[in-house]
Every structure is written in structure tokens, then in C-alpha cells.
């Protein structure tokens, strides 16, 4: 209505902003699914050229190949791999994820100025980072097994569990990286926070649990410890993997307790379920932070 009144006062100008030849509004707007898929495809293509991603895949390739060559047998190679995977995947997911998001911030702003929803953009950006990282890991570990050959059928299952756990950890820690990057304006602070989270979950956690157990040695601590284990995705993945090896001593304290409480199948299902929750929560929190952020 105001546009109408204006047209009488300024005859030289058009009444409404949209009264100009323009092709965009007439075309059908893309659905959120299409937008997410486009952004995902763009992310994958962008990372496909990244030397970092190539280096990441090569790292797993070389480590796996060396373990298979000199580590004596596929089973033992897998066991050694587990520890590498549990340290490296969270670290790379957090550090690479935080850096990548800070570096692409201006471009994200440009994309947000297009008619795309934030939820769809988040989904595309998240999957566009998490999927290539997970794929680089799976290919890097899988190829050496392909050319050296997998021993028993059980080993193949273990390899599958390793790939699944690695992919889940990638998803979890890339989501945490998104959460950190969206919340922190400053790149260095974001990076510091990312390394801090890694140190806490990958290194300090089990040590602190052990300390607590030592302090409360006279009390029944097994149930609280079980709860603590469910609260750390790296511990969960460790238990899931080492349940396949019958070597509770290698599981850290929480893992050892876990195997005493649950037999293989129930324990594995419980740990996998907890891992799925761990994947869903940071993704949901990251999406919410991204939706409400001021760019």
C-alpha cells in the first residue's frame, strides 16, 4: 500500500522494487534438500583437491600398510590401528573442521545472502566436510587390507567395526568442530578450544577416571565409572573395538569395567547406541547454533 502511494509522488521511479526485469523470482526456488545436496557436492569437490585430505588418507594408508607388513598378522595390525584411530581421528576432525570453517566464513556469508535456508546450508556444509574425511579414512585403511588380503572372516568384521567407529568418530568430532567454530569469532581461540577438547577427551579423561577410582577405592565405583564411559565417545569407540579382541587389559580402566558388566553382544549394542546419541547431540547443537548465529 505504501508502494502505491509512492508511485504517485515519484513518477520517474518504479513503484515497487521488484518491478524490474529479473529472472530470479520467477524461477522455482530450490528445495532445502536440493540446496543441501548442492552445498554438499561443492564441499566434496572443494576438498577433493585439498592436499590436507590427501595427506590424511595417505597417513592411514602408510600406517596400515606398515602394520600389515611388519606387525605380524592382520589381527595384531588391527589392534595397533585401533589406538592410532582413536587418537588421530578426533584430533583431525576437530582441528581441520575448525580451521576449514573459519577459512570459509566469508564464502558462507555470501551463500547465506542467497535464497537458501540455514538448516539446509548447515546440512550441506557439515556433510561436505564429514563425508570426505570419513571416506579418506576408510579408503586409507581399507586399501592395504585389500592388497595384503584379510585373514579370517572375523578379521573382516573387525575391520568393518573399525571403519564404522572411525566414521562415527569423524562425524562426532566434525560436529563438535562446527559447534566451536560457530560459537567462536576468533580463529586462534577456536583452534585452542578444539585442541583443548581433544586433550580432555582423548588423553585426560581416562587418567582422571583412574585417579577417581584410586581415591574412592573403598567404595563401589563400577556403576559410576560405567556412566563416565558412556559420556566419552572415544571411550565408547574403544570399547566397541576392543570387545572384538578379548583383551580387556588394553581397554583402559572404563573399558575393563564395561566388559565385566556386559557380554559381547549387549555391550556392543549399548556402546553403539550411546555412540549414535553422541553423534546426534553435537549435530543438533551445531545446527541450532548455526541457525541463530549473527554473521
Amino acid at each position, binding site marked *: 500500500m505504501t508502494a502505491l502511494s509512492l508511485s504517485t509522488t515519484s513518477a520517474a521511479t518504479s513503484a515497487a522494487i*521488484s518491478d524490474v526485469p529479473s529472472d530470479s523470482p520467477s524461477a522455482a526456488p530450490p528445495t532445502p534438500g536440493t540446496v543441501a545436496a548442492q552445498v554438499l557436492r561443492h564441499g566434496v569437490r572443494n576438498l577433493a583437491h585439498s592436499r590436507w585430505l590427501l595427506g590424511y588418507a595417505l597417513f592411514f594408508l602408510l600406517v596400515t600398510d606398515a602394520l600389515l607388513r611388519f606387525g605380524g598378522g592382520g589381527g595384531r595390525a588391527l589392534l595397533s590401528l585401533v589406538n592410532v584411530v582413536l587418537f588421530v581421528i578426533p584430533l583431525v576432525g576437530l582441528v581441520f573442521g575448525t580451521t576449514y570453517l573459519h577459512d570459509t566464513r566469508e564464502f558462507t556469508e555470501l551463500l547465506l545472502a542467497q535464497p537458501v535456508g540455514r538448516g539446509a546450508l548447515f546440512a550441506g556444509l557439515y556433510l561436505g566436510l564429514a563425508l570426505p574425511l570419513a571416506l579418506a579414512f576408510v579408503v586409507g585403511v581399507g586399501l592395504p587390507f585389500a592388497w595384503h588380503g584379510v585373514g579370517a572372516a572375523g578379521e573382516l568384521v573387525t575391520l568393518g567395526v573399525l571403519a564404522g567407529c572411525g566414521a562415527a568418530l569423524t562425524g562426532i568430532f566434525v560436529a563438535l568442530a562446527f559447534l566451536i567454530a560457530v560459537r567462536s569469532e576468533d580463529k586462534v581461540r577456536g583452534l585452542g578450544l578444539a585442541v583443548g577438547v581433544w586433550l580432555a577427551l582423548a588423553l585426560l579423561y581416562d587418567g582422571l577416571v583412574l585417579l577417581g577410582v584410586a581415591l574412592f577405592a573403598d567404595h563401589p565405583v563400577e556403576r559410576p565409572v560405567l556412566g563416565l564411559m558412556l559420556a566419552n565417545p572415544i571411550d565408547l569407540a574403544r570399547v566397541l573395538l576392543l570387545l572384538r579382541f578379548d583383551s580387556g587389559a588394553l581397554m583402559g580402566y572404563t573399558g575393563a569395567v564395561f566388559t565385566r558388566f556386559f557380554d559381547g553382544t549387549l555391550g556392543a549394542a549399548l556402546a553403539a547406541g550411546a555412540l549414535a546419541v553422541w553423534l546426534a547431540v553435537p549435530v543438533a547443537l551445531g545446527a541450532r547454533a548455526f541457525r541463530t548465529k549473527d554473521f
Partner: protein
Amino acid sequence: MIEIRSLTKRFGPVDVLRGVDLTIRPGRVTAVVGPNGAGKTTLIKAILGLARPDGGAILLDGAPVVGDGAPRGDAAVAYRARIGYMPQIARFPEQLSARALFAFVAELRGAGAGARDDELLERFDLAAHLDKPLRALSGGTRQKINAVLAFRFRPALLVLDEPTAGLDPLSSAILKDKVSAERAAGRTFILTSHVMSELEELADDVAFLVEGRVAFAGSREQLQTLTGQARLERAIAHLMLRAPIRGAGAEAAA
């Protein structure tokens, strides 16, 4: 036209926008000016939907698009198909070529096979650079790509943030000619710039922000009458000196 009504935005303890009321008239170039920290960037980002206002609303051709009364969900973003944005800093994914960038944005906008505006592409003579990775291009060339992208889908409203920063004088003149031509064709522009000669050449209307409020909004003629200064640079300097005494300008403009 664009109506901005009582727009407020707070970043932590800082009130960046304290109730901005502004009407941007169609088919004209509105320059948003003001001292550093006046809220220019936040206002532009609110129009683009990048920053979320705490209160107030933005209406595009009578329909709320941001803030109070704006649609939610998927419908909330549709209005941006009518906007072309040229950010101040052009940072693109480095592996990407300009051609791939254009295709990507076209897909995101759902832009049909309709006519593209590639006049700037030709006048900037960018054809030879279209397939190179953007990282291999100079900062100025990337800024030209940035400008091409803003005009390419023939948006009704163009938001240009310091558009000639980083451009050489010839390219800068080409871009200014383009703005004038598209304005004559009926397109609406919102422009920020620290280059006074550029505003002198392009601006029809001036919105002067101080400390998160509109201290003056009106045509250049009104600004001249108010300040007694013929040149825009002098007039704006005059406003900046008088800035602490607010209100008079806004009333004169209304």
C-alpha cells in the same frame, strides 16, 4: 521499496542498532553513511538476513521479510532471490573457478535458464580468467568477479558494500557506469562507501547513521538545503560535526 521499522540489534553489551527507521525508495541509489561503529554493516546484514535483529521489522514491497511478521521456515528466505549482494571482501574457495562459482550460485538461487547479465564480465574483460582457480587471480580480479556475481542474476535490489575498494580507476569507473545504467533501468541500490567522490557520483538519497540511529535520511537536495553545503562530502562532514545533536535532520527528511 524497503521499509525499516524500529530495528534494534544488540551485540553483548553494545546497542548497535537502537531503533532504525528508514525508507529506501525504489529505482534509486541510497548511500548508507556514518562514522565507524554507527551500525552501517549491521543494518546491511540485517537486510540480507545475515544478522538477526532483536526487534523491529524490514518490509520489502509492503511484505515483512525480516523480524516481526516475517514468514518462518523455507518461505523466510525466498525474498533473497530478489537481492544481489557484493560483499566488501571477496574470499572464495580457492580451488573454485569463476565459472564453477557462477554455476554453483545459479543452482542455489534456483535461477532458471533466464537471461544473465554478463555485461560486467565483458567490460572487465574476464573471459580469459573464467576457468582459472580463483586463488590464481589477483585481489582486484577477484573483486571484479564479485561484482559480476552481484549483477549476474538481474536482481531487483543490489546491496554493494564498499564496491570499488580494491579496484583500479578504470574498473571502478566501469562499475560506477554499470550502477548508473541499472539504476536508470529501475533497479534499487543500497551502497556503503568511504569514497566521497563515488557517493557524489552515484547517491540519490543519503541515510546517515549515528550510534545506531538514523540522524538524517533524505535526498541529496534535502541534505544540501539542510546543511547549506553544495558538495556531498562537505554536507556529510557537516552532519558528522553536528552528529551529537540528533533529531533535526530526521525530521527535516520526513
